């Protein structure tokens, strides 16, 4: 059975359960005697089992069922909780995660993950071996109850009641007309009490492929009924006679499976696809651009009536933008809750014992920023466990607590999120970094001696700091930090590092809470407008030809008593090769602690822009970090100053 609509629900609900499973299981590992945790894990598994069974994912259901059995025995204290069981349940969670990912990608895990699933099921079954076997009930069916108040009035002395389930073919066109044809045909030889989904939903195509008809007829032959409604483009018809349920059955029905509840409940909150949110964001971005244009025109018109109306529209647009941005907010917990697992696994491999603390799970930020943050954070956490934390032996030797602490926290500072990854590990010796920077030829011994600790740590995030074949304790902290840094900066954020040798390190990330709306300076080069992030623009001035020197064959100017490279922006963008005489409007840009100047054609102005990602065709050399829409409605490239040629 392929039920896409349910599949999406299944994917999102199961993911939520997997997050809480992970959290509860981690907690259980620390407090093995907490019965509430076991209950929670058991319930989540049970729900997943029911949902999976309902959409025909038998393999997931089977695994969840086996895990549930195991948990049930642990719960009833027929088995004692031990590491192999915890690991096996972790393993099942991993399997379920990948199975759900397969489903979400439109593949069938029963095919792609077949062997893995069945192997795991057997493993768990073996672990669950206990004296007496507990009940093994079949997974609940999503049939719902039969509403006899609607059936009984149609019954006569010689009529029979059937539930007819019709499953249309997968790619059937005009579904509701097809459903109508079936119902129309059935009405030729009986009466329809009701349908599930309701008839109006069938007419409005609010159903997937299957529907059920509660049907009263004088025909008493399932075969005959089937052949009468056997139309084309119908995959399957199931017919069962329906008898009024007993009180006992009614009670059972009330314990509806979580899945049915899910599908039928009218939630207060509506799930909106991220795609739709992005579309809304695009439209609002467009609207804001036109609002600006309209404002200009209104001003030019000098007509106060028009101006007043435009002001009104402008206000509503701002409010709309605000609301759309707010609707994109999600809690940090969405990604934070995955991290305890990341830290646990990394620590386990390295045989370290780490107490992981999470703070600020409830802080809300834009969904797309949060998604971009996940990877850098995983990297920083792994780095902390891997390179930051000493081994247990080393910790004991230096008089520290054997168990190390890693803390991930998020808090709101002004309109930004401050996210810190902190550990009480060995810390970073800034003198060592300075030494290495000199070795690399990035600075002279005199230069580094005057640098603050903070400036010294900036070297850590330079590409190439940790390219050493053998990653040492110091250089290890720099691994991938350049990538983390450029990722954070592309989001309009910044990263800084604090550390005290012997006591620990702290990585501080400042990122915008709301979708990348950044202030930019618009400049033109070769008739095209480019946006430069204001945060990296140091200065603008009119360059005079006599101020340009040539040092080692490269043009340079003196800026803050320091020689910095200068060239035309159009040349850095490979739009021309000729240099000619350098003069005219010039911007000085800051790039990872150093400066470079670019001569432009013209300053266009300043604008707040909504950053959109760049098509993957154009992402290859990272000269641009994104794209936005100009006031005139044209695409406008945002220069990634850090990757611009000097």
């Amino acid at each position, binding site marked *: 059975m392929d039920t896409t609509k349910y599949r999406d629900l299944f994917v999102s609900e199961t993911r939520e359960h997997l997050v809480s499973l992970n959290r509860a299981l981690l907690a259980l590992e620390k407090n093995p005697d907490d019965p509430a945790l076991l209950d929670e894990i058991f319930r989540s598994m049970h729900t997943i089992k029911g949902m999976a069974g309902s959409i025909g994912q038998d393999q997931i259901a089977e695994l969840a069922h086996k895990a549930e059995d195991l948990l049930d025995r642990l719960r009833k204290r027929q088995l004692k909780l031990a590491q192999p069981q915890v690991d096996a349940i972790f393993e099942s969670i991993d399997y379920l995660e990948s199975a759900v990912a397969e489903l979400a990608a439109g593949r069938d895990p029963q095919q792609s993950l077949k062997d893995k699933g069945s192997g795991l099921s057997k493993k768990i079954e073996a672990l669950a071996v206990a004296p007496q076997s507990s009940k093994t009930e079949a997974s609940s069916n999503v049939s719902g109850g039969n509403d006899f108040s609607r059936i009984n009035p149609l019954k006569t002395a010689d009529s029979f009641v059937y539930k007819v389930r019709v499953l249309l073919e997968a790619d059937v066109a005009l579904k509701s007309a097809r459903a109508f044809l079936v119902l129309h045909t059935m009405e030729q030889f009986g009466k329809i009490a009701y349908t599930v989904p309701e008839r109006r939903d069938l007419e409005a195509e609010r159903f997937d492929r299957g529907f059920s008809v509660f049907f009263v007829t004088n025909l008493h032959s399932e075969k005959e009924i089937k052949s009468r409604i056997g139309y084309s483009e119908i995959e399957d018809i199931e017919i069962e006679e329906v008898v009024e349920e007993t009180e006992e059955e009614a009670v059972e029905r009330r314990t509806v499976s979580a899945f049915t509840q899910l599908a039928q409940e009218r939630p207060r909150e509506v799930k909106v696809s991220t795609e739709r949110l992005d*579309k809304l964001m*695009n*439209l609002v*971005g*467009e609207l804001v651009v036109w609002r600006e244009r309209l404002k200009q025109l209104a001003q030019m018109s000098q007509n106060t009536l028009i101006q007043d109306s435009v002001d009104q529209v402008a206000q509503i647009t701002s409010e709309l933008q605000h609301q759309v941005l707010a609707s994109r907010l999600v809690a940090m917990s969405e990604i934070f809750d995955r991290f305890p697992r990341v830290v646990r696994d990394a620590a386990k491999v390295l045989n370290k014992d780490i107490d992981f603390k999470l703070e600020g799970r409830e802080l809300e930020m834009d969904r797309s920023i949060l998604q971009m943050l996940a990877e850098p954070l995983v990297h920083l956490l792994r780095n902390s466990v891997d390179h930051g934390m000493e081994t247990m032996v080393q910790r004991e030797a230096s008089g520290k607590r054997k168990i190390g602490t890693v803390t991930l926290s998020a808090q709101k500072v002004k309109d930004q999120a401050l996210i810190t990854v902190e550990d009480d590990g060995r810390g970073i010796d800034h003198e060592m970094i300075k030494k290495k920077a000199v070795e690399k030829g990035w600075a002279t011994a005199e230069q580094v001696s005057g640098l603050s600790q903070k400036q010294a740590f900036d070297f850590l995030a330079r590409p190439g700091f940790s390219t050493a074949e053998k990653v040492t304790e110091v250089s290890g902290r720099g691994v991938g930090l350049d990538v983390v840094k450029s990722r954070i900066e592309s989001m309009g954020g910044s990263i800084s590092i604090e550390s005290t040798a012997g006591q620990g390190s702290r990585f501080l990330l400042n990122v915008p809470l709301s979708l990348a709306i950044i202030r930019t300076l618009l400049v033109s080069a070769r008739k*095209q407008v480019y946006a430069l992030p204001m945060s990296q623009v140091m200065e603008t001035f009119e360059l005079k030809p006599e101020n340009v020197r040539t040092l080692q064959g490269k043009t340079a100017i003196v800026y803050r008593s320091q020689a910095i490279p200068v060239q035309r922006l159009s040349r850095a*963008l*490979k*739009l021309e090769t000729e240099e000619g005489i350098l003069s005219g409007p010039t911007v000085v840009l800051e790039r990872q602690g150093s400066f470079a100047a670019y001569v432009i054609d013209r300053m266009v102005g300043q604008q707040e822009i909504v950053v*959109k990602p760049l*098509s*993957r*065709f*154009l992402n*290859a*050399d990272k*000269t*641009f970090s994104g*794209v936005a*829409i100009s006031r005139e*409605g*044209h*695409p*406008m*490239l945002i220069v990634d100053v850090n990757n611009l040629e000097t």
Partner: protein
Amino acid sequence: MTEKIASEEKVIFNLGSEKFALGTEKVKSIEEMQDIIPVPLAPPYVTGLINLRGAIVAVVDLRQRLGLADIQNGRDMVILIVEHNGEDVGLIVDRVLSVEIFEMKSQPVPEAVTKTKSGRFYLSILGAKDEKVVILNLDKILALEEK
């Protein structure tokens, strides 16, 4: 049932005088030619970016991608918006001719042709001689090449 007869709807278009086709299921919309903002340092066959109702879409010069002669046509040029790997991409074509349902068997591309510059982007060929229509392989056309 008889042997398989592919009856598929295709958008037929010109690049120069040759006829090419893509399945209608791949084409999301046909847009008028508009200002395309060039992107420095982009691959040569990427013309630039357009603003498509608030979404920014990269536009590929299909003629250049296929290595065909560069004839300026201009007037009837349109942009076909296709979806590829979850991203919308525009393809510039010289002229859209028709949308037709084909009900004939397509032939494989002759091996000699697959080795030509443009032939590697061909999926199959419908019809023969003057009425020949080349069905393009979108995945190959929009695959990123290693530098």
